[in-house]
């Protein structure tokens, strides 16, 4: 390829990387424990969403460019598994896009950039791996005066096929110390997680089984009314309160249905035939009576099997619900399938798709219902009662999350899940990284340290640029926390600290936050998850290098009738 065409292709690369950098800057305010939330307004629909994380922001924005979609894909994939670290992921994507752009301006080739940045990341990862603190040592460091068993092991259920007979209890002080360290400002949410952990370990099963955690968001009462309760907590409407009154104090039978419970419902995968005509010479066989017959059959089935509680994953026909109330059959709709499966295991009930499948063998036993509290809204019209449904051997635990601001409920729920996953991940990894920018300072140190040993001038420049990137990360973090008035001030602090630091010694992170009168003890007890951080860094660099290496964008889809191509690229 001639030099001239390299320039023009270089322009296109710039655009994609520039786009990536631009999108990333919108999420800077989410970095760190003090997040500034954002409102996203839908101009057409008039809806608004309140977001406080990169994952939610990208979810709610309409994105036309393929780069933005790639970023969203990456972020959502990370979020789905780890539920935290997306802000770091997006921030670093922006930083490293800028590094790549800088290198391209200097005339570095793509393969040089790729090799050097990959090497730089490996340097950082290796240093962090070595400096990670092992959980067991952390706990024994904290309670050194108390005698602790040497191998504290927290067993966890990863899947339903793992059964562990090894139940060793962990000192609750250790767990709360770790939990506090990784809460990153969401102490209230982390407290809920700790309560859930306590409840679950009381059930004599493995502690903090994340598969058995449920959230129940309730809008109305203020945040301080959030609680964690044993069992499955759900809101039922005022009409069913008489049913609850009757069913309390008894041991009940339960039936579980997936899908909707109505005459028209057919299971997923059933294709309705488009053109069926029913021809009959009997005028009394009408459609209404078909539905009536179905409701009678369904109701009779429930009565004959003495079903007291019916849990359905979809929607239940209103007429059937009304039929059940006078006979004290509790009907709960919209139950997640994994909750149904848990009840199936703990009560012996068999999940069915159609009410006609219900037999004696499919009905479960040993269920209890307890009224928890009433929530009244708008003067009685939308009153609801929160009840907890428990089965004898279940380790299901529900966190009821309340907020007087409906828009904030989603953020609160996200925060709960983020804390729960971080705690779970901490015990899965068995180690943690020092937080409050300690890890990032270490990365800068290592990058500077490795530069003199490099023969390749390109690599030296890239290491320098990556160190600058980490500097930007720390400055943004400090700015968001309010400990500096501008990023330049933060950079000065960090540079001074690195200069003063002795050779070979890790940077003292306390000194970074001390001038701002931040409680230094609390600083040293802040931690980060190893897997969450490392995965976020890796995915960020993967994405930047992928975008860097794609030199053309092919636009598919031309609207019919228009013979005008809006934008196209020649290979």
């Amino acid at each position: 390829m001639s030099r001239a065409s390299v320039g023009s292709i270089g322009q296109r690369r710039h655009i994609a990387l520039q786009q990536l950098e631009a999108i990333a800057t919108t999420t800077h305010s989410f970095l760190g424990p003090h997040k500034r939330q954002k409102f996203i307004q839908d101009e057409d629909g008039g809806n608004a969403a309140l977001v406080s994380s990169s994952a939610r922001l990208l979810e709610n924005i309409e994105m036309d460019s393929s780069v933005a979609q790639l970023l969203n894909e990456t972020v959502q994939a990370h979020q789905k598994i780890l539920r935290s670290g997306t802000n770091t992921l997006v921030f670093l994507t922006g930083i490293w896009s800028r590094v790549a752009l800088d290198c391209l301006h200097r005339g570095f080739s793509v393969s040089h950039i790729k090799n050097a940045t990959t090497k730089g990341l490996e340097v950082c990862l290796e240093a962090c791996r070595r400096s990670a603190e092992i959980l067991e040592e952390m706990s024994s460091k904290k309670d050194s005066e108390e005698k602790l068993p040497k191998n504290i092991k927290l067993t966890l259920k990863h899947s339903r096929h793992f059964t562990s007979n090894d139940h060793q209890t962990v000192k609750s002080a250790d767990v709360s110390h770790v939990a506090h360290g990784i809460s990153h400002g969401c102490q209230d949410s982390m407290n809920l997680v700790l309560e859930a952990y306590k409840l679950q370990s009381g059930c004599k099963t493995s502690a903090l089984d994340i598969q058995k955690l449920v959230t129940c968001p309730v809008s109305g009462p203020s945040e301080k009314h959030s609680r964690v309760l044993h069992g499955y907590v759900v809101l039922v409407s005022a009409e069913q309160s008489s049913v609850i009154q009757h069913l309390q104090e008894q041991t009940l039978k339960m039936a579980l249905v997936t899908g909707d419970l109505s005459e028209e419902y057919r299971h997923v995968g059933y294709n309705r035939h488009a053109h069926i005509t029913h021809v009959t010479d009997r005028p009394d066989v009408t459609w209404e009576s078909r539905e009536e017959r179905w409701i009678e059959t369904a109701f009779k089935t429930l009565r004959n099997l003495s079903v007291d509680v019916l849990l359905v994953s979809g929607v239940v026909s209103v007429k059937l619900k009304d039929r059940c109330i006078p006979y004290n059959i509790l009907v709960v709709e919209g139950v997640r399938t994994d909750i149904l499966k848990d009840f199936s295991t703990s009560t012996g009930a068999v999940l069915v798709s159609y009410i006609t499948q219900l037999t004696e063998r499919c009905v479960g036993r040993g269920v209890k219902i307890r009224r928890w509290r009433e929530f009244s809204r708008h003067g009685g019209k939308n009153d609801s009662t929160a009840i907890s449904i428990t089965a004898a051997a279940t380790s299901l635990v529900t966190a009821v999350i309340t907020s007087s601001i409906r828009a904030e409920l989603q953020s609160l729920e996200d925060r709960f899940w983020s804390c729960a996953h971080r705690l779970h991940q901490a015990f899965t990894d068995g180690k943690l990284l020092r937080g409050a920018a300690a890890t990032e300072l270490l990365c800068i140190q290592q990058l500077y340290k490795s530069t003199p040993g490099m023969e390749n001038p390109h690599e030296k420049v890239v290491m320098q640029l990556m160190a600058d990137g980490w500097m930007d990360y720390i400055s943004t973090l400090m700015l968001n926390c309010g400990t500096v008035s501008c990023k330049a001030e933060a950079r000065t602090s960090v540079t001074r600290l690195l200069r003063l630091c002795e050779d070979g010694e890790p940077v003292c992170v306390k000194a970074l936050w001390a001038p701002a009168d931040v409680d230094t003890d609390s600083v040293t007890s802040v931690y980060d998850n190893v897997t969450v951080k490392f995965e976020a860094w890796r995915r960020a660099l993967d994405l930047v290098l992928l975008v860097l290496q794609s030199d053309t964008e092919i636009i598919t889809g031309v609207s019919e009738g228009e013979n005008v191509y809006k934008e196209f690229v020649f290979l």
Partner: protein
Amino acid sequence: MGIFTLRLIESTQKLGLRTVAAASKVYKHLLDECNLYLKGDSCICKVRVDFTSCDSLVALATSMLTSKPACMLNSREKQHIGSLITQAFLYSIPCNSSGATCFGRTVTIAIESQSVSDAAVFPGLLVDVPEMLQPADLKRLGSGPLKVVLFNTSLAGDISEVGDVALEVYGGVDPDFEVLRQLLRLGEHIVKNEATLFACQKVVHPVLQQYLREHGVIVIERLGLGLMDPFVQITGAQAVASLCSPVPPEAYGLIKGLSFQSCGSRELLQLLPCKDFPFSTMVLCHRNETMLEELKSQSMVAKTATSLGVSHSEFLMASEVFCSSLRAVTLSLEHDGQDCLIDLTYAHRWVPDMDSPNSVKRACGCGLVEDRSNLDKTPLNTAYHTFCPVSLENTDNQPKILDSFSAKLSALNVAVEIANLVLDLKYIIRDVN
């Protein structure tokens, strides 16, 4: 090879109408010559792959992955995937068979959001675990061969298979009820014939599923078209297309056993074949969906092997176009706009060293030839005297980059055929309505 085709077409069109017709004949002839040379023993582009050494096979697989940067693998991950590919290939070589042998089968499945190092090769076929399946169900099956039945028609209880026609139903008949009744009759028949694994390409009605499960039959639905062929191969079952007639005895298949396997955090169900048929599944993992797709398409098992009525000037012009198009392919290998050099002894490709612009890298592009002071080189797109390349004898160097012989040969043939087809076209008919 798209570059080759396009270049060939573009350059030929510049030659003038009469020459265009002649050019196709020349290209066909040159292609035949290329085929002859490449397939012959004296071809110096071919490298013998030593099957007694795992290292060379792993190197071959790894080098193919190296040539695809969009997979985004670091060297450790490349080594891991390279050795997995080799493992899968070795699994597919049948042992204990005499006479004509053919390779076995490797199915590739992809899991997103996992670390690359979770990728693994498993014997047998891996499918998604059916929703209601519990470990207790598998334990109840015990050991020993299991009878298998396979359906490729929808058993969802609907009448979608008839197509988009108008139906009239008389006499108060309920089609859903009747179809379900037939499905349950089918279920009874299957249970009576002691089948223990019931698989369907499409959806199975929940009521039928419940009936089968209650009688100790394991149900796998939504197998998908892609897995039907491997399933048939591994079990020996014949796919049944109708739910109305009883299943013929020869349609049943057999498997040795079922077990759970986990790959990363995902659970899968493993089917083990009865006969000695070499079958394996390679599970590929990657952090990002786009990179996973790229990795999946690049994982291939290494295989070896492997007049004209035109005027003199037409022949020369067409040959020059053919050669310059091949050169264009070589030049496009350097993405950074670097110059491409050819040495005048062995005819290997050389790239200037990034760090010292006036000299070349220590070894040639494929790694077989080391640089020497008397090795003359010239840029590829300049003129040079024709010469006969010397073949490399007794070199200790291993080739760094290898391509599949059959893939390259086939690509070259297809490229020339397409070019010839396009050049031969005189009219295009377009449907304006």
